[in-house]
């Protein structure tokens, strides 16, 4: 560095005297490596690392919402009825479901014979319900979140008082789902839901919405039946507007809730699903069980 030397007498330095001293530097940055290594790279590394996502799932137990109080009351078992078009009505060209109430169809309606039920044939035991849960009630743009399968079983409803299976035209397609501790004799698959605790806890009002559909996979004919939780179906005039959306009959709204530390879920029907006969009947007085009934859509 060049040093500019000057001699200044003390007497010469009066008021307002300033001396500009030029400081020359022969250093200039060659690159930004220091900045890059210590700031840029670190920042980029930080950005490249995914945030920790909480994959913890917890058990959600079914509940009914008491109309008077709005409280979510846990239920230890509920029933799922499936109702199909009767073979006779289909062959007549006027498909009709069995009965007029929220009731199940019979195994004879979907092609099972007594031997299937009595011997628990593979085509019987491998037939199953699939409950699928989606984020939106629109089949064109929704995402499957989770599903649960419930396999066909012979329970109290399908047996007579001596424990023998009933004839197939008296054997209801009905499943009683129950708590594995409180109701050990019931079907437990599909009773609990397992979902991410974090998503529910951080949802508005700690309530998380899903939309459920039900399919029956029939081992007799290999067909997958779509069923809706409303009987308001015109088999010869099925429109997308009637089926889909929050007001449609196909998707049943399910809300998962953190209810003061207890994780619950409940079915929230729309108007069509509440129409008589209701597809969702959770507040039926005892000894009736909370019941979901689903009717076949397409013959």
């Amino acid at each position: 560095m060049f040093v500019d030397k000057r001699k200044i007498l003390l007497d010469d330095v009066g008021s307002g005297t300033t001396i500009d001293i030029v400081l020359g530097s022969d250093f200039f940055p060659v690159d930004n490596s220091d900045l890059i290594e210590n700031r840029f790279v670190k920042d980029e590394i930080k950005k490249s690392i995914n945030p920790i996502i909480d994959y913890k799932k917890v058990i959600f137990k079914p509940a009914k919402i008491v109309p008077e109080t709005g409280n979510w009351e846990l239920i230890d078992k509920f029933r799922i009825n499936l109702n199909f078009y009767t073979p006779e009505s289909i062959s007549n060209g006027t498909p009709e479901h069995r009965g007029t109430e929220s009731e199940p169809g019979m195994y004879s309606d979907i092609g099972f014979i007594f031997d299937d039920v009595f011997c628990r044939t593979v085509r019987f035991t491998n037939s199953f319900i699939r409950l699928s849960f989606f984020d939106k009630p629109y089949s064109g743009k929704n995402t499957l979140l989770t599903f649960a399968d419930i396999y066909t079983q012979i329970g109290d409803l399908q047996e007579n008082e001596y424990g023998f299976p009933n004839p197939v035209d008296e054997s209801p397609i009905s499943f009683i789902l129950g708590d594995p501790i409180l109701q050990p004799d019931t079907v437990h698959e599909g009773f609990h839901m397992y979902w991410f605790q974090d998503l529910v806890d951080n949802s508005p009002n700690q309530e998380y919405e899903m939309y459920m559909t039900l399919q029956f996979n029939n081992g007799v004919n290999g067909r997958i039946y779509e069923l809706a939780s409303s009987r308001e179906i015109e088999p010869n005039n099925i429109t997308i507007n009637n089926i889909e959306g929050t007001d449609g009959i196909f998707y049943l709204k399910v809300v998962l809730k953190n209810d003061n530390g207890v994780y619950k879920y409940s079915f929230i029907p729309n108007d069509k699903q509440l129409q008589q006969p209701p597809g969702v009947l959770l507040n039926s007085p005892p000894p009736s069980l909370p019941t979901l009934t689903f009717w076949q859509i397409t013959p």
Partner: protein
Amino acid sequence: MDKTNKILLNKERTYNSVNVNSQLQIGIDSTSKPIPLNDIDTTVSQFEQFEKERKESTIYRFYGQVTPIISNPLFNDNIKINNVDEPIKEEPGLGIIVNTTPPSTKIFSNDIFETDGWIGYYNDEPDESALQFNDNKSALCNFTPFDPGYDRLRILDNDGIPNYLFKITYPFNKKDITIVKNKTGVSLKDGIPIIEKFTVRLNGREYVGFKTPINHGLSTNDEIKLIKFTDNTSPSVLSLNEKNYNVFKLGNQTNDLKFRTFIIDINPNDIDFEIGVSTIKRVVQNKLSDYYVREFKSLTTASIGEIGGSYYKDYDIYPAAFGTSYYKDKVASFNFKTDVDVDGLKDNLGRPLSELYFTIIKNDSDTDPTSVSTQYWLSQQSGLTQDIKSRFWTKITAGYETENNENINYNIRSFGDPVYNGNDYYTNIDESDKVFDGDIVEYNESELLERSLEFVHHRVNTIYREYLNDIDSVYDDKREGYLYNPFKKIQIREFANYINPVVDIQNLIGKYGITNPTEIEVLKKSFGVPSYATEISNNVYKWRDLLDIGEIDSTGGGVDYPFESGAHYININDRFFFKRQDPPCEFIIVTEEIELGLTVPASNKEKFLTYLSDPTFLGYSFRDVNDITNVNFTDGVGNIANYNLSPNIILDVNLADFVGEYDLGKRDVAGGCVNLSLLKQKDIDDVC
């Protein structure tokens, strides 16, 4: 740069000129440009990032299984409770009212059976429609345990009422207790007391042995300090105050009781002890061990979500698929919904937590007024005092499994024995408590490690058994209760197997004359002295490193468990033993004489029937075999009981009197240690 400028001050230009501020702009030109950088490649290590996140996380999640070993040998009464149409009713303003006491049927001794440890009966009544027991599913030849049965004892039961509560706890404090009664204020902090002196002959010599009320935690050759012993030698050859002694051997003359006896190479005649006053302390490198009780604090709320739903706020519980114990008790799986954050928590020694405890507490929520059996027991207890008559279970009492000596406090197996009345126990423990008394531990500053000597045990009994004499003065109390160990250790971190070299900061402080506390702290930090380090003298520290998760030391010490979703996942696999307080290992056959016939009071018949229904009934015989020749007892026992003829007959009734180590009232069932082959055996074919 070599360009120079000469600048004259104005003063130098003319005589009249004055200096003014002048500014000169100098342009710094550069013809060079930053060199363009090549592509920058940086490797991000997934492993390092994982390790970083794992080290930073203080969140723990717990899940696992509990295999219960539970049964009901301490049942209330050998009765079958029958259903009634309306055992209770609800009156406005008065709440639930017992309408009537549900009827009960005494089960005769011959009809009492044991199945997988459960004591009960097989239904042998063909019409079950009107008969129910708890689960409403009684059926012919179904085994039903006496109360408390499955619904009050199992971890998983289907009445929807939790029988136990799970908690996560940690040791946060320590306290002192007096283990052996004394009048001089000697307590656990003064060492482990001695309760017995004995002589052992080895190699032709006599050695003195001592017995402690709890586990002493000693090993052969350990150095111990004998405190407040009497030196019988003159002059004091033993030098007990100055000298430490080594443990010559553990165990007594027969090599038994190694955890509670030890032998020293001293002539038994030369030394004496005073119970409750004389104590020992282990010595390591001239450091005496500390002895104390750890207190545990709950990290979870353990509140029940909804009564009647078997739902807990802290955790979910459900049957483990196909999981049963050898005795067919269902294995319970659980999953804590509540995360446990140990950030900032310190243990009783001020160290970061290295241990948590999975804690199971028996709770008393067995007073569901809609249950027929509950109504029966509550109506039986209606004459008891207000604070207990509405409970099914007593409050929990706790203590340790100590030696049997009436001077010993906290002997949980003795609780209820009149000889021990007035002794100390931990009492009034409830599942809603947040703080629990725990184990007795030893800590030596030289080793910097805690060693657990005795686990705490909780004790519960049913109110009916505990106060049976108050309920019906004909009977004695049945004061034998159940014991269980509530705490299971979860090792979340481990201390290294080595002790760091001693760090002497005082040396530096003295050398440089540092007095500022902040500077001293900085100095500590720069030497890596952790906050929990033990200050062995002023500013001189020693400590054990707390190993990181996944770090294993040279002896295999350390922990490693899954880290996922920002939390540590700990699997707990626990066995939960619900055992008898004092299982009787001895029995005496007692023979009672009963005279039946025309001229004896009617109460004799009742007495005979009472004997027949006593669970300890073994059999009866005619005093004189000639008595049976003229009488046709076609209806078995019932006919004999109704015998009302002359001459009178005399029967010898044999009953078993089971004897335990403590006087805890009448025992109905023998302990597993009794040789039952000597007693009568039954077969289910006798009934069904």
